[in-house]
């Protein structure tokens, strides 16, 4: 009779611990039985459950005591498998981060001030840090103006990760082209860097004004 009762208590404890998303304290566990079981009994039975599961072969879970109480957890060696179930979703960069990256890629080397001027809004330091931690941008110098702001440029890792050989392989972006299309077609066809350089200088001068 008594052992029957003990078995039932153990079954309830086990079910409670396997279904609880957070560790259960002795007080929680007492509530299961409307406080009609002794704390010492509970503690003893928890030890028994722990040993039962340790003796189980093959076994998947263990009962452990952590700061806030008792919990069942998957054996550590299974964690690598279980972690495959919920791979961290690949993050997406925010629009702000993407634009910052684009400005650094296309206009490097640039300071934070340059980025802010282009985007018209303040740059979140986290955005820069995020890109630096990914090793996509780094500081290549300081501009010689008061405050000596850092100059950012893209790294080799950035090119590797985007499968580019050089920045010249970045998609060409022509906005508000003044020239008729035929001329820009010619530009693409020649692909000659020298021809393009001349274009560049003219334009960058204009933009710098």
């Amino acid at each position, binding site marked *: 009779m008594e052992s029957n009762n003990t078995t039932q208590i153990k079954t309830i404890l086990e079910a409670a611990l*396997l*279904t609880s*998303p957070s560790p259960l304290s002795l007080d929680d566990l007492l509530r299961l039985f409307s406080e009609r079981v002794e704390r010492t009994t509970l503690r003893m039975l928890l030890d028994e459950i722990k040993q039962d599961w340790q003796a189980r072969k093959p076994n998947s879970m263990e009962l452990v005591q952590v700061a806030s109480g008792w919990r*069942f*957890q*998957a054996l*550590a060696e299974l*964690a*690598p498998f*279980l*972690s495959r179930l919920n*791979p*961290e*979703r*690949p*993050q997406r*960069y925010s*629009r702000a981060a*993407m*634009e910052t*990256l*684009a400005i650094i*890629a*296309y*206009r*490097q*080397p640039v300071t934070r001030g340059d980025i802010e001027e282009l*985007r018209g809004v303040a740059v979140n330091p986290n955005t820069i840090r995020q890109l630096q931690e990914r090793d996509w941008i780094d500081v*290549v*110098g*300081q*501009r*010689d103006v*008061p405050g000596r702001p850092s*100059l950012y*440029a893209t790294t080799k890792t950035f090119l590797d990760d985007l499968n*580019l050989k*050089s920045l010249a392989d970045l*998609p*060409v*972006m*022509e*906005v*508000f*082209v003044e020239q008729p299309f035929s001329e820009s077609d010619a*530009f693409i066809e020649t*692909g*000659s*860097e*020298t021809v*393009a*350089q*001349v*274009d*560049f*200088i003219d*334009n*960058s001068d*204009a*933009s710098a004004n």
Partner: protein
Amino acid sequence: MNTLITEVKAHTEPRLHGEAITSLPHDLYIPPDALEVYLETFEGPLDLLLYLIRKHNLDILDIPMAELTRQYMGYVEKMQAIKLELAADYLLMSAMLIEIKSRMLLPKPAEVESEDDPRAELVRRLMEYEAIKLAAQKLDELPQVGLDLMVANAYFEQIIQVQSAQVSMEDLLAAWQNVLKRASHFAHHKVGKAELSVREHMSQILRKLKEHNMMEFSALFDVENEGIPKLVVCFLAILELAREGLVKITQQEAFTPIYLHINQST
């Protein structure tokens, strides 16, 4: 058809008049303090009608419209008296009931009467509603996770494999396009491969200078391995760096080596 006959008969034989007054709505009476709570338990006019039908053991397929309408109106009046908000739905149903009742009192051509019972639509709705009402009760009786069912939810040590954001060239281009669109002073500016080459070299030169502090001008050119175009780009990059004040170019005197160093004078 039978109902029609009885309705008509009842109408033409008002011999039970006196009795009607005395034996009125015996189960319409509810203690006044309980009335509001009671009326609020109805989920709408159909629910109330169903209640009346079940209460009086009426045949749903052959509803005595006069009785049902009268009882129904009694409840609606009580609801109005205590200003229950549901009145509108209930009033609409009152109108419908009265309409059905009056249509039943009209004489009809004998040959169509069986298909043309004015109650048909009401009966269909009542039956459909009752079926749903019963289904809702059964659904409510099913065991529910969290109430009657506890699902396993033990702990495991999540090994977080952070996946970095995926960025495609298209994403980057779109972002750049956005920037350019917003930056109006960029109008007429053209960005091409060449600019990128120069800018890339600017970054590379800065990187080298950062490493070595100072470099001889000629050391920045790999004359043996680079073609003319690259050398020109490199030169342009140096000029651009100088123009932007990022590097200083110094020479002690004519024909001595030219040095580049990062501009650190402040």
